[in-house]
């Protein structure tokens, strides 16, 4: 850049202003061309819509949706409190889109947590000293990365989840987990009738103590906090524990109780977690291999075992290196939830399709959906950048 400045000062003033003017003209020309293109596009679309008798407006969002979704919650007003309730055809189109967003986020957030865990495991497995584990992880990662995600989703849905036993013969694992064609059921927590304000307060205190135990430093302090939390929990049990375990029970056509995941969500979640884990595994493996070999050797010379080295020395450093790549992966994963449409999962994109089919409002909807995905991407990268700054930024000070 410095050469350009020197060049610039060697130009006589009269020519210099000409140069600046021509630069401004160029800028203006580019802006005018692009803006003109966008305006032409907008006008052409508006004209085409007008020919069909449709006007570009977002008013349709307030209209009653008149269609139902298989799952999805919407915020609405129940009395004085904003509550979440199941989407029903009497809700508005806007609330339908919100329910779709809720479903997308539900899958995306669970997948982010699960794929980070499994991906790290597989990534470590690819560097295992056990030949078989190493090759197996390599084969899995390659097979998953070289095939389309869509065939994986379709396979998990049509060939696995829909082949689960019917609800009345659901396979029951460990007493609490039900896997059936009509969904997967986990044990859930319910608020028991015996709950009193005092027991709620005690539970909150126990929770706060556990949080403090995780957040604060010092082994002694942590042990004291943990003991305090345990004693408060025991006290809560005497005061009437406010939460109860709700085990799912299989019935003729479905299951009752517990925490249910629909077959579509099961398939989509498994597919996305498995797919993203393969990519996360590659990211983690790359980061571990990029660390200097001296780290392993130094910790071995201190008498640390391989697993200790990995847990206490390698992984904390790897965590810092992989953050930006993981952010990219999380963003792609969130975008991938839009493939749920292939198996009928009502995610944001699917609901947008239904809404636009019902109302003929394709273009307004696409603007909303595009902006939502943009916002999601920004939020994810902002979160990861924040963590990144916390983890990496302190070193400069």
């Amino acid at each position, binding site marked *: 850049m410095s050469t350009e400045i020197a060049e610039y000062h060697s130009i006589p003033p009269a020519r210099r202003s000409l140069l600046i003017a021509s630069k401004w003209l160029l800028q203006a020309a580019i802006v005018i061309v692009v803006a003109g293109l966008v305006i032409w596009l907008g006008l052409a679309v508006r004209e085409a819509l007008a020919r069909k008798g449709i006007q570009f407006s977002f008013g349709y969002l307030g209209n009653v949706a008149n269609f139902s979704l298989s799952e999805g919650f919407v915020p609405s007003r129940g009395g004085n409190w904003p509550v979440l309730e199941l989407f029903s055809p009497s809700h508005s189109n806007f609330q339908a889109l919100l329910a779709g967003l809720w479903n997308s986020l539900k899958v995306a957030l669970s997948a982010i947590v699960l794929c980070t865990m499994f991906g790290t495991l597989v990534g470590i497995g690819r560097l295992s000293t056990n030949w*078989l*584990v190493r090759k197996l992880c390599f084969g899995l990662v390659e097979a998953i990365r070289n095939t*389309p995600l869509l065939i994986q989703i379709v396979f998990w849905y049509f060939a696995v989840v829909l082949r689960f036993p019917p609800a009345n013969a659901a396979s029951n694992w460990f007493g609490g987990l039900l896997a059936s064609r009509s969904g997967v059921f986990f044990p859930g927590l319910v608020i028991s009738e015996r709950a009193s304000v005092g027991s709620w307060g005690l539970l909150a205190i126990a929770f706060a103590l556990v949080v403090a135990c995780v957040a604060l430093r010092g082994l002694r302090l942590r042990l004291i906090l943990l003991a305090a939390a345990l004693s408060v929990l025991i006290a809560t049990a005497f005061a009437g524990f406010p939460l109860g375990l709700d085990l799912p029970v299989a019935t003729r056509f479905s299951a009752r109780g517990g925490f249910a995941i629909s077959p579509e969500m099961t398939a989509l979640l498994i597919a996305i977690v498995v797919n993203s884990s393969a990519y996360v595994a590659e990211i983690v493996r790359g980061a571990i291999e990029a660390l200097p070999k001296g780290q392993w050797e130094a910790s071995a010379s201190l008498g640390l075992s391989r697993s200790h080295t990995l847990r206490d020395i390698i992984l904390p450093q790897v965590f810092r290196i992989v953050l930006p790549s993981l952010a990219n992966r999380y963003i792609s994963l969130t975008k991938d939830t*839009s493939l749920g449409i292939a198996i009928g999962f009502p995610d944001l*994109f699917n609901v947008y399709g239904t809404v636009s089919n019902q109302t003929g409002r394709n273009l307004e909807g696409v603007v909303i959906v595009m902006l939502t995905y*943009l916002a999601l991407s920004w939020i994810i990268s902002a979160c990861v950048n924040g963590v990144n700054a916390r983890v990496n930024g302190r070193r400069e000070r």
Partner: protein
Amino acid sequence: MSTVALRWVHRNLFAKPFDTALSLVVIPTLAWAVYAFGYWALVQAHWQVVGGSFKVLMTGIYPADQLWRAWFAVATLCAMFGAGLGLSVRAGRAALTVVALVAVLIAAVLAVAIDVHSGGLAVACAALGIAAWGGVHRSAVDQRIVLSGLLAGVVAIFVVLSPPGFEVWGGLLLSVVLTIAVSILTLPFGILLALGRQSRITSLRLISTAYIETMRSVPLILVVYWIWIIVPLLAPDTSVPGLLRGMAGFALFFAAYVAEYVRSGLQAVPRAQIEAARSLAMSSWTLNVDIVLPQALRVVVPSLVGQILDIFNGATLVFIIGLTDFLRAGQMILADPQNSGRTYEIYVFLFAVYLAIGGAITYASRRLEAHLARGSR
């Protein structure tokens, strides 16, 4: 011999307590999985369903009397792949022989499983591909000749396949042709975007950046669907075939990714090169076209080849605009009540073909990377 094997097993599987525990869990699981899959594949599976629907899987619903067009396209594709392999993968005679044997074996199995006519054509196509590989590999033709040959091949495929209409294109042929066409289409647009993003002109830079960031933040399926619905609105009097609209959507989306790859290549070009060219009073056009871009593109060739895999895997999304690609053709066959209960045969076949093509693309990009790294040393 046996002591060597035992020592290998000990060192690689049972060296430490943790490894032993892992092995004791993994080996029985793996053995059970292999046994279960093998038993199913060899005894229970009904592979005739794949043979019976082979033409639909490969070409979709292409009219039977026009099928020679599809076969011509397949032959051209085989020759193009062969030439591309000859250009990029410097394999020895042994590797060539192995590939040739495998290809002939697959073609022979096809001949038995389907009918002798198509099987013979498959053998011919495989032979053509291997001949092209050997020819380009041995004679060391100029790269430019091969590249223009590849381009001519794509044009020829489009010209020959077009007469019955784009609507009847389908199956694996559609996926592959779409992938190749989109890969070519994204290049110029991606390069322009990358140059725009690097430009000193602020407005150009902002617009390019905004475009790239937007495209990278939204799902491909949304872009494809959006282009598909907006084209008829922009051109109400002409009906643009769904395939071309889909290609436009893919190209607009993947151009943003190509732009990012090219940008990384542009940044890898040493600054001194640009300064030296400036000092020779080169215009910025000549500078970019003759000095910077050739070096930048050389660096990003492996990434661009890897990108082809993304496009190929993304091509399954054309179901959203009603095209019958490879995966959709498989699902169509499964929708036929006659084939109900044959889910696994079809999916295993689809998976194997996707894996073979995807693996080949990954392998090619790795080889290219190694090749270029060796060349620059």
